[in-house]
């Protein structure tokens, strides 16, 4: 039995400890916002936060997150009405095409801005390794810069 929190709710899982967190989220908890893309930690579609840090849930055995706090795309917005600044920036630039990778892109960006509130293009190149097959990278880059601005404004208010 492994216990942890997801988006501030307590959950427990009594299956195999080697089950990747991704499949616990998707198959056991029916939280399907976190996507399966490669299964080997390459594409980042499954990115979630474990105690605030971005982690690829497809290669994270559920046993390793015991007593930790998981945040998924479903838990990122502060409320039904208010989006996270990164989500707002994504809407402002109409980033998604098929949209399949975007939950992972957004979770990776939130972590990047936590570590580096005002990233340069070179910082983005180094940090953002998630794959977008549709090729939304030009808008992702703009949206990251915009999200940095929105976050900074939010902190001043």
């Amino acid at each position, binding site marked *: 039995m492994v216990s942890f929190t997801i988006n501030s709710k307590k959950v427990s899982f009594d299956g195999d400890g080697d089950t990747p967190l991704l499949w616990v989220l*998707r198959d056991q908890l029916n939280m*399907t916002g976190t*996507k399966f893309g*490669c299964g080997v930690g390459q594409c980042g579609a499954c990115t979630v936060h474990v105690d605030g840090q971005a982690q690829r849930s497809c290669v994270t055995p559920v046993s390793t997150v015991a007593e930790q706090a998981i945040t998924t795309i479903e838990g*990122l917005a502060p409320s039904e009405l208010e989006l996270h600044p990164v989500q707002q920036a994504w809407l402002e630039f109409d980033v*998604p*095409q*098929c949209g399949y990778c975007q939950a992972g892109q957004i979770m990776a960006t939130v972590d990047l801005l936590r570590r580096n509130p005002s990233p340069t293009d070179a910082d983005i190149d180094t940090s953002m390794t998630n794959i977008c097959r549709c090729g939304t990278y030009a808008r992702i880059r703009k949206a990251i810069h915009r999200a940095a601005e929105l976050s900074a404004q939010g902190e001043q208010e």
Partner: protein
Amino acid sequence: MSAVLEQKTFSRRQVLIAGAGVAGGFVLGIPQLANATTDSDRMIGYFVEIRADGSVVIGSNQPEIGQGVRTALPMLIAEELDIDWSMVSVRQMPLGIIKTADGFTWKYGGQGVGGSTGLTSNWEYMRQVGATARAQLIKAAAARTGVAEAECSTRPGVVVCGSLQTAIPYGDLIADASALPLPEESPPLKDVADYRVIGSRVKSVDARDIVTGRAKYGVDTVQPDMRYAVIARAPVLNASVKSFDDTETRKVPGVVDVIKIEGPEPGAPYVILASGVAVIATSTWAAMKGRQLLAIDWYESPNATDSSERFWAENREMLKGDGQVVLDDGDFAQAIGDAETVVIRQYQVPFVSHAPLEPQNCYAYVQADECHIIAPTQMPSGASRAAAAVTGLPRENIRVDMTRVGGGFGRRLTNDYVAEAAMISMQTGWPIKLQWSREDDIKNDFYRPGGLHEMQAGLDGDGKVVAWAQRLASGSKYYRRPNMPDEDLFGAELYIDDFPRRIVDNIRMEYFHNAIGLPRGSWRAPAHTANAFVVQSFLDELAHETGADPLQLRLDLYGASREIEYGGHGGPTFNPGRLAKLISFVADKIGYGNTLPDGHGIGLASHFTFGGYAAHAIQVSVVDGKLTIERIVAAIDCGLAVHPNAVEAQLQGGTIDGISTALGLEITVLDGQVQQSNFHDYPLARIAAIPSLFESYIVPFDEQPTGVGEMGIPSAAPALTNAIFAASGVRIRALPIAAQLQI
């Protein structure tokens, strides 16, 4: 892609087919366009629902694969209906087919997306749906107020009658409007000058659901009592299961069944790609674990010795002989014999995989007399056919629901994974969600065909191209198609009406087929990606050989704006002047002709794809064998841009797809096995490969929209390799680039 490329012959049929209310509102059904041809599947109906509060729910009949069709088609209806876009929500429609005496017709219009036709094939129809709905609302208002119909008009969401002060909201009129007979003809459509929705910067209707994780894809399907399945597929092309031992598999907690999957006969048309063993479990992970523990014996395959090395050697050998002449205008032999300069080059274009980010998956529940399919597919009618073929059930008993699709790129024109899911459900009795892994996807695809092209050109003393030949040895996409004669295999790889036909008088094309066992299919802009790379590279080489400027050489060939005959998809005409305008545009934007530092260069390319036009200018540096893309300028001429955000997105996405593929992607075979398996050895480009200096432009032309899904890709790769040559003198004649330069 043939299903969407069939000629559509329509005649109007004016019948009101729906009237009952939904969700307190009301459905105005305006069927259109019954099929005049005999072969099934062509009857059209569509739905505009106006709710009591004035909001409008517009049905979207097409699969959404990221091309923005769920936004663009409802925009057409909203425009003519005269409704504020903020009042619109969109509902996904399922597959609609109706059995007739001699086959099937469409219930909601032709459904399927491929060949960049989603918008163009619905352009008239959706506007007529909106305009007819608006006319009915006006009639209802006129009847209620006693004001003459001609004195009534609309403002967004309301009908205004003569000098009456009170406008009547659509929501108050809809009950009356629905009871009125439809007009014989669609009312006149708006002038372009009056558009408020079409051409506006509308955002994707699904963006909020996507960024909050609520959008539902095929992989997200959950149904009662559903079991999860994965398949261990033959590792060698065309191998089949001899026997298997599932003892260890069945010990995995959650595994409920293990069954054999019969594959196709080698060389026969595909229903599915491979023979295998399916593991069914109570979770995806249990099924995957169980699969790892299978011990399977395979029969020897006739393709067990296939290899890329042999494929390329055979192609080189074939090009030394004479192939099938598929185009022979003028007198090529005479013209090249008389030419002042003759240039011959070979270019190699590899097999590549689609790799949509959502791996293939499908929900299927086969019962005694019915079947339910929920699938991410570009061709829902193909899904219905695939399920019918597997189950033997009549198609009218097969229900197909479409989810949002995590990328198409042509992979999901084929419904092999639907057939697999139906097989497993039928054999086990369970409602099944079949899940492919990424490895399943990379190793089992309908790959873009690889080929070796030989280009020949003769130029006269003035540098004018007087003779042109393209000779191609490749694995045709049409291989293993049912009823496909060998002499037609070339048609998927050489588009004989492409540039420079009817511009260069003496032109010849030859084809040689290589029957390597790799499956192949339609990969975004199919043969245009290879042919644009080859032709646009070769033009640069001609310029280099004769001392001409690469831009000027193209402008001289393209010439003035004029329509020339074009018999291929995207015809009936092609205007090379639009390519001239676009390539001049991108050259100007990037500063073509300006002096650059050593090791820097600019490359240009342009191409006509399925009715639309695009051009790229790319600036790179090559320093110590290391390539850096510094700046990209892309432009598209799609006639009228209906949904500019989506046009730009497709142009940017196509450009990145072209660059990503050219930089590092290749599928190779050794001992009959695909050697790539996941993104570590099939490295799609990440954000670092794409510079922040990336401009994309929509260059308007006329009032007729073209498709946009494939136009952005073909000219990107040759612009990049032409830039590499300009920067370094290294001519890339074989893709991918990573085999020759550090990227």
